[in-house]
């Protein structure tokens, strides 16, 4: 494994992976490293999954620019990469005259940002569109171009496409410090040894300010803002067709109720500033604060079908806008810093812009040939009976259902393990296949998934983890009864 690369991307979230994919079209070696043991392990896996239309950002800000551009790229990008995406529309609901002013503000901002189809509707139209809404709401901003996406599946697809085109990925890499060698290269000291690169790109999310401040005399500061969520089981009929927002505040876009692309219902997020960006625990206060607000939107909500809670930490730069481009006073270094909402929506546009800047300034030459994206097979549960029959004939592993809640077959799990960026632990398989995402939350399938990972990779079962590091599943065999040593 070489420790020398032309381009080093620090951070394997949606931004880092989208950029890696863009840069893989050039004749330069690209290495992407992440502290976690998979891509999309930070904010990219734990957010609302909304492709915002772009009515919220202040006109003229980078957030506005990239959100609107990014949202326009989504339909074709997701089509190309076979990523679940749906333009379900949104309503921002208001309850008071003050809210009405906010909605008018959003409408004019949206129009200034070039968001099509926005209009404010009254209670009757609102309740006709979404009968489960609180009838106390008076009016709403209708946002027809708001979309939903599976943020981690998008990140996996971007990473796979990058990997197919030569980008290397290395996980469990904690970056300690960055310095400049006498030959102008960067020396990046990490938990896995020193790395050398000519071009450094900081896509480190919550750590991006700390990394930036090592490189530049201009200092940034990131506030870690945690958002907690409830995820409800797939109902027979969705309570809301659209994403329902409340009026935004200083702390963010507020608590939403939204369908997911997989037909679940997402409630959240809370907004609380915390010290440790890795602290993604949920708290009773945080969850209670979400429910209090959800009840305002959806008086009929019930937690009887809750299947999991989670939280993500967004990186809020204290100036309030994204920081994107060359690192000031540090030639060869680039960054995408302070990427909070609408970061997911903006990701494709940010990656394009950064890639254009890097390739031009660093005189990268286009690669003579690129490998087209290898679409993963359609999930078995989404096939027609004829397609299922054909798939079973070609690969009998489709006949073995491993996850009964989400109907995921052994064939799909094996495919996930062998994707270009391989799924080597339980959560990695879960997010790529949905095995364990259902109402029993892996109670049934996780021992089976662990066995398949072990069989396919040769990793002993005792070393299979939930999500890398020392998140091991098992502590020993019955015969040895020995306490196992932590593998850290």
């Amino acid at each position, binding site marked *: 494994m070489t420790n020398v690369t032309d381009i080093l991307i620090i951070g394997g979230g949606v931004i880092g992976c989208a950029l890696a994919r863009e840069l893989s079209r050039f004749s330069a070696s690209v290495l992407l490293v992440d502290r976690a043991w998979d891509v999309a392990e930070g904010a990219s896996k734990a957010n609302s999954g909304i492709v915002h239309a772009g009515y919220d950002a202040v006109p003229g800000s980078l957030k506005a620019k990239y959100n609107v551009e990014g949202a326009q790229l989504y339909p074709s990008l997701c089509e190309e990469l076979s990523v679940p995406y749906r333009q379900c529309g949104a309503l921002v609901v208001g309850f008071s005259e003050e809210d009405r002013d906010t909605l008018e503000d959003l409408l004019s901002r949206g129009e200034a940002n070039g968001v099509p189809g926005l209009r404010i509707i009254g209670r009757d139209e609102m309740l006709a569109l979404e009968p489960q809404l609180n009838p106390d709401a008076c009016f709403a901003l209708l946002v027809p171009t708001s979309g939903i996406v599976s943020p981690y599946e998008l990140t996996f697809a971007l990473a796979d496409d990058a990997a197919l085109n030569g980008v290397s990925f290395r996980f469990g890499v904690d970056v300690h410090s960055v310095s400049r060698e006498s030959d102008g290269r960067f020396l990046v000291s990490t938990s896995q040894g020193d790395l050398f690169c000519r071009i450094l790109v900081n896509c480190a999310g919550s750590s991006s300010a700390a990394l930036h401040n090592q490189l530049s005399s201009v200092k940034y500061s990131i506030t870690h803002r945690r958002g907690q969520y409830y995820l409800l089981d797939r109902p027979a009929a969705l309570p809301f067709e659209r994403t329902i927002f409340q009026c935004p505040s200083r702390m963010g876009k507020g608590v939403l109720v939204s369908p997911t692309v997989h037909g679940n219902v997402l409630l959240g997020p809370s907004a609380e500033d915390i010290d440790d960006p890795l602290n993604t625990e949920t708290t009773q206060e945080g*969850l209670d604060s979400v429910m209090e607000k959800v009840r305002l939107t959806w008086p009929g909500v019930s937690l009887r079908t809750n299947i999991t809670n989670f939280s993500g930490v967004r990186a809020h730069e204290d100036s309030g806008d994204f920081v994107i481009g060359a690192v000031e006073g540090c030639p060869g270094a680039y960054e995408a810093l302070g990427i909070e909402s609408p970061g997911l929506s903006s990701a494709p546009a940010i990656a394009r812009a950064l890639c254009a800047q890097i390739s031009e300034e660093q005189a990268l030459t286009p690669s003579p040939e690129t490998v087209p994206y290898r679409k993963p097979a359609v999930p078995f549960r989404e096939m027609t009976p004829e397609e299922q*029959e054909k798939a079973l004939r070609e690969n009998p592993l489709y006949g*073995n259902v491993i996850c009964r809640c989400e*109907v995921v077959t052994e064939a799909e799990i094996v495919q996930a393990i062998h994707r270009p960026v391989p799924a080597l632990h339980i959560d990695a398989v879960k997010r790529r296949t949905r095995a364990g995402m259902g109402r029993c939350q892996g109670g049934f399938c996780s021992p089976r998934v662990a066995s398949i990972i072990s069989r396919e990779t040769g990793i002993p079962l005792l070393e299979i983890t939930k*999500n890398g590091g020392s998140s091991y599943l098992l*502590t*020993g*065999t019955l015969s040895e009864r020995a306490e196992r040593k932590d593998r850290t």
Partner: protein
Amino acid sequence: MIREHVDILIIGAGPAGLAAAIAAREDGIDSILVLEREAMPGGILRQCIHNGFGLHRFKEELTGPEYAQRDIDRALELKIPIECSTTVLSVSKDRVVTCISREKGLRLIEAGAVILAMGCRERPRGALCTPGTRCAGIYSAGTAQRFVNLEGFMPGQRVVILGSGDIGLIMARRMTLQGAKVLACVEIMPFSSGLNRNIVQCLQDYDIPLYLSHTVTDIQGRERLESVTVSKVDERRRPIPGTEMVFECDTLLLSVGLIPENELSEGAGVVISPATSGAVVTDSFETSVPGIFACGNVLHVHDLVDHVSNESFRAGHAAASYVRSEKKPGLMLKVEDGAGVRGVVPQLIRLAPQEPVTLMFRPSGVFRNASAVISCGDKELMRRKAMIFTPGEMAAYSLKPELFAGLDGSLPLTVRIEKGDE
């Protein structure tokens, strides 16, 4: 696509499916097929290697696999085909079953009658909304049981068990016997939902403390579980601040309830009871969809497998009668839950039944020296006193056909528990 036909198709080869198949065959039904998702028949009993099964049915104490084997042997003797490693994807209203397997691919099977015997699944952490981190080391008790008993691995060494359902209690003992330290069993209710014999034999015999009216209020650990916080709860089950105890542990086992696995049933349009989370059935175990029957834990969660088998024999006989068109549907008497009672099964009884009808239910709380009373309007059909009713033990009462004389269905049958002297 291959389209086959059988008279009775049974989904699941656990104790319920096996008993139903045996009963139907003994009634002379030739064309029977049992489909099983696992590689072997026996269902969840395969991983229940402790004893205590079969006391009612066989008058001896068997292990789970031994109990299952008796029915498997009988099914083989009767030449009942059991196709394993076969998953049912859907059941239609008109009883066309779609299934897949590695060997036979995708198949459609039309059935004269379908018996749903899919069992139940465990409630996960999410159902409780317990805050904290989402680290490794949190398992449902049944998942841990599978790792230990079927695969030979230990899921952890220092264990806290949340919920005092029977699987949790059994796993407290099992983990202890394998050298793990079980620190506590924590139950949010003021009483256990498990069998009393399991409290004694699995906790008390090993000095494992049972904390009633307590729950887990925080889970800590970035990668693997490091600790859980346990708090006392008030009578409305809200944690009481200041009562927190922290247990350092690497494993949290959840035994917080079982839910009948009714996705296939719902897909077929079967009406589900909110009280049992299983199908609404008649005294023939027929669901709201004609020709589709349900029995065992998919119908309602039982305490003892003996009761599952007995119920499923009756369901098998009823399905056999159905395919022979012996029983015609008629007017029904509704059965309702009264005070102290949750989820009476069956919910409907044919007027003037020819055979005894067994009513089963879970008490909604602990009642001492109380009476179970079954009545219809002013008429009391049955009154039975018991020393104790608890949610952990299912109550079952058989009513002779003559008791139903004169009932015309205009009023429902009500089952209630009448409190006695405490």
